[in-house]
Each structure stands twice: as C-alpha cells, then as structure tokens.
C-alpha cells in the first residue's frame, strides 16, 4: 500500500501531454446536438412509409359521400345515437348532425369534453376530464357525477340499460357506475389472483365499449390487446398482437387507441401513429381494412412529426346499425363515413 511520489521524467511528461491532447480532441469532436444521428443500426429503423402501404385487396370499405365538417377547431370524440344522428365532442361543446351532415343542434359546455356516448333513451353521457355529465336531447344538464380526482383523465364512456362504464387513462382504471352515478366497482386494476396485469397506457388513449354479448371490452394499448371483462371485473379473455410489419397486428407503442363494435360482433379498431382503421371478427381474427393511412391522411406514413403531436392526435371511430363506420378525423375535424364494398 505504500507508494512514494516518484520523479517526473520526460517519458511520463510526453505520455501525459499526448493523453491530454487526445482527451481534448475527444471532447471537441463530441456530437452534443445529435447532428450525426443516433448511431443505431438499421434494425432500429422505423420506416413508416413502407409499413403504411396496404394491399388494395384487403380494403373492404369505400367512402361514398363527402366528409361532414364538424366546425370544431379541436374535436375529441364521436358517437352515433340509436336514431342514426352523429354526436361530436369538441371545443367546449357537443354538436349533433343528421346523416346528411346538417347540424341539428349544439350543447355548450363549461369545459372541453373528452368523450361521449348516447344511451338508448336519448340521454347524452359526456366524460369531462375528471367527471361525467349527463344531458338530455335539448341540452339540459340532468346530472353531474362525482369528481374522480386530479389524476383522472376520462377518455371513454359507454352505457347499457343499468350500467355506465368510464375509462380513466390517468388512473389506468375503468369505473363501473349505475345509471344514477353510484360507483359500483373498479375494473382492470392489477390483481394477481384474477390474473389481471393492469392497463398499460403510455399515451392518453384508452377506449372501452360494451359488447353485444354483455361483456365489457377494454383496449389495453400498451399490451396491444382488447380485453373482455365481466361487469364484476373478472378478465374473461383477450385478443390482439403487436406487429409493426404485419397488418394483422397493432403497430407502435400503444394501439389500438379507439374501437367500436359492429352489430355482427366484429370490431372496428383505430390506430394512431400509422393511422389505420381495421376490422377483426368477434374472436379477434383480422378480416380486412376500412381505410389505411393513404385513404385517411393522403400519406402512406404517419400524420405527425413530433412525439407530442403523435401522442395527441388519434382518430376516433363509431358505427351505426347499418354497419357504416364513422371516422372522426381529429386532424381536419371532419367525420368520414365508410360503407362496405364487398363481402369479407
């Protein structure tokens, strides 16, 4: 352990100076602004232009009519009422349109609505950031439910005869209320005994819908799955796989962002980043495409450039009793209606 200080000879001095010079060059040449790129290999390249190309034979839908302009500068969510009218949530308001695109009415809100659904009795359930509000068809507020806390970010709502389910992306949970607003239970929290791994929601898109079989379907975007729960919160089954390459899978970090259920129990899913609207049968088997990036955005690649933009823009989907698919383009704030062109 004992070492005395030695004398500095010329060899040591030269070696030290050379090392210092190399060190200085290393610092000066360091790419601190990322001009030279990430340095990652091709295996990490994410070429969306290529991935966005869809085989035309897979496209099962056409867009026969021009889009409906919502007039919003920021639109959030779409729902189709049992009578066929189209409800859009946007700029602190709910607007409803006839199939023809005529504006039927508007309900002014105090804040930005995040999601909405229309019940069989015509009541409009609106998910605000942290609570639910209910309106009648004339725009009269019927109820305001309990505040769900600062962390709550309500992103989807659906209603059946006795139950209301609300997806909270902030708390990564689904709330089960009765129609009078009493909280019955929470669904989807991590539970080893129930073999529930929890919802993975990297971006604030978290959708749900009540299936025709009575089971609640919830998107688990981080896991690229749609999960089926009973109203008691038991996980029954799930389907969906990740793939950036195969159209059958869901792409990117977290998809599907939104979905709707057709009368024949098949699913219409909507993906962000690489914008695609696709059809899966009731067992989750891919059956075709409604529209790809090119049809929806005019580009084969993604519609956004910055991460923040990619996270915020997600199209929404809804369906009507005639198997028509309504896509809310949150970029242009229009509703595009797709109808089937051939049998799957």
């Amino acid at each position, binding site marked *: 352990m004992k070492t005395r200080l030695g004398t500095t000879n010329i060899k040591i001095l030269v070696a030290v100076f050379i090392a210092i010079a190399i*060190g200085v060059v290393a610092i000066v040449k360091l790419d601190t602004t990322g001009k030279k790129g990430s340095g990652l290999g091709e295996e990490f390249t994410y070429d969306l232009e290529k991935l966005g190309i869809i085989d035309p034979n897979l496209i099962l839908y056409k867009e026969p009519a021009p889009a409906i302009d919502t007039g919003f500068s920021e639109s959030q969510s779409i729902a189709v009422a049992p009578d066929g009218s189209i409800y859009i949530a946007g700029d602190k308001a709910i607007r409803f349109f006839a199939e023809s695109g005529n504006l039927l009415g508007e309900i002014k809100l105090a804040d930005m609505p995040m999601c909405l659904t229309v019940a069989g009795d015509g009541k409009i359930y609106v998910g605000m950031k942290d609570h639910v509000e209910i309106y009648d068809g004339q725009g009269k507020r019927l109820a305001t439910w309990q505040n769900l806390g600062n962390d709550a970010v309500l992103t989807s709502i659906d209603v059946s005869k006795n139950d209301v389910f609300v997806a909270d992306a902030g708390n990564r949970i689904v709330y089960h209320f009765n129609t009078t607003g009493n909280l019955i239970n929470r669904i989807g929290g991590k539970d080893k005994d129930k073999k529930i791994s929890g919802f*993975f929601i990297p971006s604030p898109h978290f959708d749900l819908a009540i299936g025709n079989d009575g089971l609640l379907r919830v998107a688990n975007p981080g896991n690229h799955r749609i999960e089926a729960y009973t109203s008691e919160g038991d996980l029954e089954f799930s389907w969906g796989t990740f793939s950036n390459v195969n159209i059958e899978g869901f792409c990117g970090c977290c998809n599907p962002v939104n979905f709707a259920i057709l009368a024949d129990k098949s699913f219409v899913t909507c993906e962000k980043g690489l914008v695609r609207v696709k059809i899966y049968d009731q067992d989750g088997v891919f059956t075709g495409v409604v529209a790809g990036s090119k049809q929806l955005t005019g580009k084969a690649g993604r519609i956004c450039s910055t991460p*923040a933009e990619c996270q915020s823009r997600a199209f929404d989907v809804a369906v009507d009793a005639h198997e028509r698919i309504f896509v809310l383009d949150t970029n242009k704030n229009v509703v595009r209606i797709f109808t089937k062109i051939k049998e799957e």
Partner: protein
Amino acid sequence: MIRFAYIIIGIAVLLLSSGIASGFERFPPPDFESGYVLPSPATPNPRQDIYEYVDTIVLLTALSLSSYLVLKKRRRRFIFVLSVLSLFYFGFWREGCVCPIGAIQNVALSVFDKDYAVPVAVMMFFLLPLVFTLFFGRTFCAAVCPLGGIQDVVLMRPVSVPQWLESGLRLFAYVYLAAAVLFAATGSAFIICRYDPFISFFRLSGNFNMLVLGVCFLFVGLFIGRPYCRFACPYGVILRQLSRISKWRVTITPDDCIKCRLCEDSCPFGAIKIPTEDWPAHDYNKSKRRLAFLIILLPILVLSFGWIGSILRPVTSRVHATVRLADRIYLEETGRAEDTTDASDAFRATGKDIKKLYAEALAIQARFGLGGWLSGGFVGLVIALKLIGMSLRRQRTDYEADRAGCMACGRCFEYCPKEHSKRKQAKETMGGSR
C-alpha cells in the same frame, strides 16, 4: 457554532428555494410482446419505489463507515476496500446515477425553474456528502465517490505536480462548476453528466468519444493522482470549501508531529503542507503592498470576468436547444441555409409561430446575459481570491494535511512513526488485557 448555524441556514434556504418531489414513472414502458428490439437507453432506468431509498441508505452507510475508517480506524487498507466496494455499487451496479456531482445541476435547475422539482433521493445524494464533509472532512472523496475510486485503483506511479501548476489547473474546476450551474439553471444542458469521463466504463456502453476521454483520464491517472477530482470535479470545489471549516478532519499523525519528514512524499495529491519558515522582513513588506493591490483589483476582476461572461451569451446560449433551433430557422428563412434539419422540420410541422420562437430564444439569451454576469463574476472572484491567497502566509509548525485539498485517502497514516507506535501500543494493550 455560529459558522455551522450559518451553513445550516444556507442549506435550509437552498431546500426551500428548490422544489423537491418523489420521483416515479408516470407510465410504464410499452410492453412489447413481439421480437421487437428496444434500443438500450443511454441513461439507466429510473429507480422504482423502495430502491431509491435503498441507494440513499447505502450512501449514508458508506459515508458513515468512511468517516469512521478515516478518523477513527485510520487504516488505508480498509478505506481502499470500501472505495472499491463503492466503485462497484455506485459505479458499476448503479451505473453512476444518481451521483452527487451531477446532482448539482438538478438542484441548480430547481432553484431557477419553479416547474422543476428535484426527486428526494437526488436531493439526499447532493446534501449528504456536504453534511458529512462539514463534520468529518472529505470522507466522501476518500471512499464513497465512484469517480474517485476508479482513479484511485489505477494510480500506479504517482508523480508530484508543482504547486503553481496544481493551483492553476484547479481553476478549471471552478470554471466548470460555473458553466454547469449556468447551463443547468437556464435549462440548457447537464454538462457534468454529458462530459462525465467514466460513465462509459460504469455503463459498459456509450459514446466512443467519451470512452476515449475516460481512457485518457485513467492513463493520466496512472501518474497524476485523481486528475478529475483535483482539476475538474465541480462538486469537489464545494467540498473543498466545506472541508476548510469541517469540525473534525484527517491528521497525518495521531499524536504530536515529530517532523520526521517521512510523510513528506506520501501524498499523491500534493495535499501535505510542510512547516513554514520565518517570513523575511523585506518579503513581508512586499507582500503587504501586493495584498493591498490585489484587494483593489478584486472588484475589477469580478466585473471584468462578469462582463466577459455576459458578452459571450451569443455563444453560450447556443447550448440551449431553443436558441439553436431559432438560429437554424433564421438561417433557413433568410435563405442562408438551403436544406432543413430534423429539428427545423419538426418545428415547422407543429405550426408554431416563428416570431414566438425568436422571442423565446431572445428571452433565453437574455437569461444567459444575466447568468454570464454571475458565473463570470464568480470565476473572477475565484481568481482574485486565489491571487490574494498567494500573498498571505500562514504559520505552520507541523506537517499538516491541507484542509481543502486532503481527500482523506489515508495514505499518509502508514508513513507516520507515531501511528505505528500507537498501533503497537494498542496491540500490546489488547494482548495484555487477554
């Protein structure tokens, strides 16, 4: 006691002015189920839940143990073993993050940016070594700092550095500290982390240039003890000042110094002060005049360096991404750049107003102007105080460890005959009691 009260008040003010928060991951990373290969991140993943506190407890334990070994046990071998263990835990296992050196930047940013909160663990990593230094000297440098540890293990053939060169080179650490605080406070960059020369070793990955820099530091460290700690470490600058006033500190001898000179060449860091001779009268008068001149020069140096720091703002502010982007957009808009960059493409895609970007960049540049005055003034003050220090003469009758520069490594203990006789005595006492 008044001195300690001031320091405690200072720390309290620092804590109050900086936001502290518990660090946690807002969303888990995507759970990919295919064979997709996620690129390894350049920085370690954040510590979750209890592990953050485990790290803090390990740090506290290591600091306590180091202080005990340095001040009570006085055995270099044990200090070295603890240093190697710390190197493995804080360096290779924790991949050099969180580290108290880098935490300077988190604290600086939180003081100047109210929206930024320092995680509790980071604040503890910043404060604990300071508190221990205040009481026990630089025991953090001795056996806890992984950067010190990695340099200590390669020190094979130490040579001495002349005092004038040592003092001059050390100025770099002050400039580095001023720059690190400036860039962190303006939200531009954490340069201490960016230019950490040993991080590539700890993470076994990283930028090639930084690996080269690390190799250079280690090579120089074969001959010059702990070059990073002595001439570059910005945290060392703070520790030096606290160590000057520490309540307890390392002494070369456990007893009275017998001036045997055996320890004279034992310190590879040049931190042993030899006894002084009487000051010749003509030297004394000359130094007095020089001191008066330097005291007058002090404000001039502070203002001059502050001014230099301020006028450098067009250069320094380019470290900030927004200023760089505004510069780039300006070049593109005025036709001086024909192509575009990823950053300028991304900016244009957001649809944001270019004038707003320019205004934002100008505001940032103005902040750099003020920051330049402060950081430049700090450097000027340090230079002035260094010059004043050279004109002061302190009377020393014994061989002493330099209060500021001693890194408490314990190498000098083994050279002291008094240490050996004390150990022998202790052994005999223990033997007798059996």
